[in-house]
């Protein structure tokens, strides 16, 4: 079978160029993170990671992520069910709307929350009178994190559920199954891997969000500093090794995300074969 670009020279040239450019632009930064983090040995790396403020930042980041994931799950599943199982006016509009967080600059995302819930905003002003402060505290960080991560689960589920169609669920209805049973016994087994990958993506973004969080957090060391904000402070203080120790932890989560995706794709390919 004759195909375009099959001549050995063309083939080798293109593969060579792709590998070389990827190594330079993608792999080299990844290597540099760990090289910088361990530049002064494992002991210094460990001292940086187990530093009081770093641990506090890790704690806050995990806390925010653990709260974000269930919210995104409920929204993602509800939206995917709605737009793939029913047709109604405004369905396309809804699908466009959920892409908003992908198009909005993270700084703008942080700003609109700050304006609404900050002391001068119309909701924030009222909350302030009740002595409730959302901005420059963890609830603000949580709110913007939910904003930037909410499309991921829905975006993973919608194409899959659209492709699978609703015949199995309709069959379950005719057999008299309740809504809860249909979801648990028919839908969930079909979408669980996409759901898992959606959660992994949500996790990666929730842990790493920087722009939106830096607007609403106030970045108080030990209190409202997430891990990305903490590494920024260390970097600005010329504590490069400390900054890269935190960066290495975040890079490990990124690597886990890539491995999970490769694993899930491998699994899907094996099932098709």
């Amino acid at each position, binding site marked *: 079978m004759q195909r375009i670009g099959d001549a050995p020279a063309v*083939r080798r040239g293109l593969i060579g160029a792709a590998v070389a*450019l990827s190594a330079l632009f993608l792999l080299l930064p990844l290597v540099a993170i760990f090289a910088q983090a361990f530049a002064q040995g494992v002991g210094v790396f460990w001292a940086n990671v187990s530093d009081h403020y770093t641990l506090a930042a890790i704690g806050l980041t995990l806390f925010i992520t653990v709260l974000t994931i269930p919210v995104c799950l409920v929204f993602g599943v509800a939206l995917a069910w709605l737009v793939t199982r029913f047709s109604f006016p405004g369905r396309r509009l809804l699908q466009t709307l959920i892409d908003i967080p992908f198009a909005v600059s993270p700084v703008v995302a942080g700003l609109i929350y700050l304006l609404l819930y900050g002391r001068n905003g119309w909701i924030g002003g009222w909350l302030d009178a009740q002595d409730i402060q959302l901005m420059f505290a963890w609830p603000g960080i949580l709110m913007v994190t939910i904003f930037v991560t909410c499309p991921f689960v829905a975006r993973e589920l919608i194409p899959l559920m659209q492709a699978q169609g609703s015949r199995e669920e309709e069959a379950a209805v005719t057999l008299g199954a309740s809504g809860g049973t249909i979801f648990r016994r028919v839908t969930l087994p079909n979408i669980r891997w996409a759901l898992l990958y959606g959660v992994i993506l949500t996790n990666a973004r929730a842990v790493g969000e920087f722009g939106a969080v830096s607007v609403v957090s106030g970045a108080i060391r030990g209190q409202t500093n997430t891990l990305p904000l903490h590494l920024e402070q260390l970097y600005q203080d010329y504590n490069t090794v400390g900054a890269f120790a935190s960066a290495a932890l975040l890079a490990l989560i990124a690597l886990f995300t890539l491995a999970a995706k490769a694993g899930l794709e491998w699994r899907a390919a094996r099932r098709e074969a």
Partner: protein
Amino acid sequence: MSLALPRLTGRRRVLPGFGLSLGISLMFVSLVLLLPMTSLVGQLSGISLAEYWAIISDGRVVASYTVTIGAAALAALVNAAFGLLLAWVLVRYEFPGKRLLDALMDLPFALPTAVAGITLATLYAGSGWMGRLLEPLGLQVAYTWVGIALAMAFTSIPFVVRTVQPVLEDLPQEVDEAALTLGASDATAFRRVILPHLWPALVTGTGLAFVRSLGEFGAIIFIAGNMPYETEITALMIFVKLQEYDYVGASAIASVVLMVSLALLLAINIWQGHFIKRLHGGRG
């Protein structure tokens, strides 16, 4: 409401959960996505059109638009070429390490932007691995406009690769054969036969990469140098105004950024819808 809706769509709903999923989705979309945006309108309704114009057309702010759009355009163009090359190599060839290369493509999405930012800044600074090689050649990347474009290209490359890849995978072998049996060279066949199939996806991916670059913040601020009028991006301008407690100024600039990115998102969605319709014979 539940009585009227089935008539609107002309079809009875068989599956349960319409009301519940509609309720959750609408509540979420209005509270989380739309309500916060109204705060921009509220903030800006206090100033006159002339004041608004004065803020968004201020020299330093206009310079930041030029820097941001210029660098994002360069990054998008570079990514169009680089992304096309990578998608082609990943779909058409088998070679050792291919799986690893494929996984590596998602790194910019998985890696927190601040991590990418400090890493690129360290690599391309005068003392970094890349900086040491490039600066003797007179090429300064860190703290220049080129560095901004580099950071933008890094964070947005997966958009092009992942949009073009599936379209290339679906292209039947016969397309290649037909072109080659008619005697076309590889280059001509690619340009005349393959590219027409790919360019809708290529434009979509490049457009998404461009939108992402316009709003990017974390990856850029470390490598940009952030010199007013020279290497200051618009997202940073908003941040600077906020730190000066100039909420109106921040809102005015943010409204420009928001309108441009939403307009581009809408344009990309319409473009993609049009193109999908053409492929699937009218079924979106």
